[in-house]
């Protein structure tokens, strides 16, 4: 499953997108856990939201390989 990174998330993972096995991250909460383990830099962020198919996703939202999954570190528009 491809996970796209924006903003400081690109620096934390070192890439514009990363691959995560769907078995390791069947839902948003488990994806966040895997990310924290693999990239400890995420711990310092005041927030990390996940968007699935262009909408904010709750922790219990299921993920599938066809989903567009995007990491949303703290936004700073405006």
């Amino acid at each position, binding site marked *: 499953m491809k996970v796209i990174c*924006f*903003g400081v998330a690109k*620096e934390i993972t070192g890439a514009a997108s990363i691959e995560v096995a769907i078995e390791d991250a069947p839902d948003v909460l488990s994806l966040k856990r895997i990310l924290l383990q693999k990239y400890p830099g995420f711990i310092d962020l005041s927030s990390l939201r996940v968007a699935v198919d262009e909408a904010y996703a709750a922790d219990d939202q299921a993920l599938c390989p066809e989903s567009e999954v*995007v990491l949303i570190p*703290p*936004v*700073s*528009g*405006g």
Partner: protein
Amino acid sequence: MAEDLQIILTDQELSAEHCRKFVSVASSGGQVLFTGTVRDHTRDRNVHHLEYEAYAPMAIKEMTRIANEAQWRWALKKVALHHRTGTLSIGELAVVVAVSAPHRAAAFEACQFIIDELKKDVPIWKKEFFEGGEEWISPRP
């Protein structure tokens, strides 16, 4: 999109006057315009320029959602919400919010709501470039 809403995400220069004209209609007595510009400093350092990055399809969806909510809550006549991406210099416009309503109270409140919500939820990020470095900006708590 409804013709009384104009949502734009662009790397081109923004125009506050364009937004003001868009929302001005004969039936609205009050128009409020907010412009956000690039500041020359943050806390203790001088900013050279900014770069704005957006998750574009979702940014447009969120901007549209926010504008729709404001229009419904305050019975606005028209809303224009424009945000710029890419490299911006000091003083340049990063965002323009324009609303029109029959009376001014609604226009003021709606405009504030829109920019406040944009800053909370729209997936746009700014990176500051200053002497000696660069940093992704976190919003003030």
